[in-house]
């Protein structure tokens, strides 16, 4: 039974349970609303909740557990001898799954009968052609153990699904029955529903936290794995980045320093663009602009923040790069070789960060109490004197926090760098040279046929981990500063 139908059935049981629970509560109170502890709809919701929660929990657990079980059984079926030289059990298992999926599709397109797919034992050439005819990619002729395993795989999954459907429906029915039975006028359905809602909210919150923990753990484990294959000191202090994909990457040099340098160089250029412009824009908007200008300009500026970064990347590649090249390139000053360079990526990233800096600074400047401005104007200060000597110093900690947040975005930015900065890992001071960043290298290490057991691919996790630690540190410092600043005026 397809999952979709199963879910619908559970929901239908819940709906019926809702109606029954409701009417049972009504009738147990003899139609007197005031005799009920809770509103009738709470009794219905109580039943529906008790149907949906256990049934779906079971469903989820089953869906997670079944593949594990099936894989274990199948894995036991494959003899050591049928694992070819240079291959592994995991690869054979993947082939089994592919074959099983092939059989499924062949049945679906009519190239085989279900009977045939289940029982075919001999004539592998025929099965292979039939699979190929059904549009299935079969790398080589299918072999005996693989076919047997694939057939077993299908059977196991089919029975598993059947048992699961029955179990889920039974649980739902039983829960509905039980919940309806406990429904009577005294039952505190409202409190139970309240508890249920609380539980759902807690579950939602913990999913977010658990996923974060999961992501961090997977980073940590893979980083660990990488450091077993590649010395950590070479990674952190190596001055060369030259991964070699041949020979399982054993001759690679994976020093992070050129990448970190590129990252920081580009981020600094970006901040040099974004901080003054963003700050001045914020000062203009919050101190000088009239309400009409503000009503138009602020949303306009914030639209910039909604542009996908890939669009900025294109802008860097197609507009800013060639523009810079025409000034600093061989026809101009002759210090720039190609359109992709630190300067290109930095400028465009700076533009991307302007709304970020300006809207944060705007909030912070607005949080400076009006009394501070009055005090300054009352002494005969002009607007710009007030801004420079009273408002900005008062807002400084908050603005520093905003800049740190912007810096952590710059460090984590990827698309603009991939398109605008080039791909060469280089330790150079010339901002018109192509360089690359940690993020861009993570992308390039993982695209293509990555073998996740070799250091050239695993290094992506170590890079990601380093980046994560740096931005996390920046964010914590920034949020701490911003919060401290908020307290000052509360």
């Amino acid at each position, binding site marked *: 039974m397809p999952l979709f139908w199963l879910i619908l059935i559970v929901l239908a049981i819940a709906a019926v349970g809702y109606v029954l629970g409701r009417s049972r509560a009504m009738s147990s109170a003899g139609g007197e609303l005031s005799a009920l502890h809770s509103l009738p709809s709470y009794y219905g919701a109580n039943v529906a909740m008790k149907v949906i929660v256990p049934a779906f929990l079971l469903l989820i657990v089953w869906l997670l557990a079944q593949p594990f079980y099936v894989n274990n059984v199948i894995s036991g079926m494959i003899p050591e001898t049928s694992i070819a030289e240079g291959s592994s059990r995991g690869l054979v298992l993947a082939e089994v799954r592919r074959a099983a999926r092939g059989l499924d599709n062949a049945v679906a397109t009519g190239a085989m009968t279900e009977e045939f797919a289940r029982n075919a034992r001999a004539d592998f050439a025929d099965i292979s052609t039939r699979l190929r005819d059904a549009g299935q990619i079969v790398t080589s002729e299918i072999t005996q153990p693989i076919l047997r395993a694939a057939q077993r795989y299908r059977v196991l999954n089919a029975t598993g699904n059947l048992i699961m459907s029955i179990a889920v429906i039974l649980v739902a029915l039983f829960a509905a029955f039980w919940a309806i039975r406990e429904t009577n006028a005294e039952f505190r359905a409202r409190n139970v529903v309240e508890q249920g809602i609380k539980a759902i909210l807690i579950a939602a919150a913990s999913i977010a936290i658990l996923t974060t923990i999961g992501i961090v753990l997977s980073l940590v484990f893979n980083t660990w794995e990488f450091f077993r294959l590649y010395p950590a000191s070479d990674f952190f202090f190596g001055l060369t980045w030259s991964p070699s994909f041949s020979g399982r990457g054993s001759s690679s040099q994976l020093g992070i320093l050129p990448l970190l340098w590129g990252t920081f160089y580009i981020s600094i250029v970006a901040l040099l663009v974004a901080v003054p412009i963003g700050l001045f824009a914020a000062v203009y908007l919050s101190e000088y602009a009239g309400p009409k200008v503000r009503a138009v300009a602020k949303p306009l500026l914030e639209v910039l923040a909604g542009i996908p970064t890939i669009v900025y990347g294109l802008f860097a590649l197609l507009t800013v790069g060639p523009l810079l090249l025409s000034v600093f390139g061989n026809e101009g000053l002759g210090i720039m070789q190609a359109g992709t360079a630190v300067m290109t990526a930095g400028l465009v990233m700076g533009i991307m960060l302007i709304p970020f800096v300006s809207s944060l600074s705007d909030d912070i400047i607005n949080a400076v109490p009006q009394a501070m401005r009055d005090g300054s104007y*009352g*002494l005969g200060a002009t607007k710009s004197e007030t801004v420079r000597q009273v408002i900005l110093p008062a807002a400084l900690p908050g603005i520093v926090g905003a800049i740190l947040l912007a810096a952590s975005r710059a460090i984590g930015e990827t698309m603009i760098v991939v398109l605008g900065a080039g791909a060469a890992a280089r330790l150079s001071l010339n901002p018109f040279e192509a360089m690359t960043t940690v993020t861009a290298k993570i992308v390039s290490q993982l695209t293509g046929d990555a073998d996740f057991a070799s250091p050239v691919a695993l290094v992506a996790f170590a890079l990601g981990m380093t980046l994560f630690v740096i931005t996390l540190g920046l964010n914590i410092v920034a949020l701490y500063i911003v919060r401290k600043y908020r307290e000052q005026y509360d």
Partner: protein
Amino acid sequence: MNEMPSIEQANEMTESKISANKVQVFYGDNQAIKDVDIEIQPRSVTSFIGPSGCGKSTFLRTINRMNDTIDICRVEGSIKIDNEDIYDPKVDPVQLRAKVGMVFQKPNPFPKSIYDNIAYGPRIHGLARNKAELDDIVSSSLQKAGLWEEVKNRLDEPGTGMSGGQQQRLCIARAIAVSPEVILMDEPCSALDPIATAKVEELIDELRENYTIVIVTHSMQQAARVSQRTAFFHLGILVEEGLTEDIFTNPKDKRTQDYITGRFG
């Protein structure tokens, strides 16, 4: 400096420091002040009293053009200080505010050191040619504000770290530091306890020797204690103005009488 020993006797004769004529103030379409005429005497304290929302602060703020910082606010009529119309286009409101200082309801020291709080005004207006002169201005302002003894050893501590009463006297010292001629005070004691209030009142009484002071207050006792003349506002209108003792003992208008006897407001 002045030869005039007693203001009370001289009030009808001296030329007034501030004279307002048919002043109207609008916030958008709302008229907050209607047809106010008033003469304010130099080197004396004038208090504005009246129920909440009657326009005392609004009128006070017209005297140093602080209302210019509110976009929707519009002022009509004429206000003259030393016979010069302050709403004349050739008057720079920023310069005007150096001459007409202001102290606010809530103490609002800048988040700077005590020294820098006082030095702020003189620095912007270039009143000191060197550090020594600036030091002099700071110490003499603090002395005039009666704060010198309390803070002379902690001038580099932040002004925001002082008590409320000290902060308010710091704000007065800050206003004095740019040598204004007029000081406007909008409920300067409303955030202070009785002892701090007494100190500020004492200070106001001393400052009267050198400055023209206008103070908005909700406390009738305070108006009676510190001011020589009192103006009573009601619903944007200046109902009655005169010698403080006359207003409190012998008001001419029924509304004034009701207000000072506590029958409304």
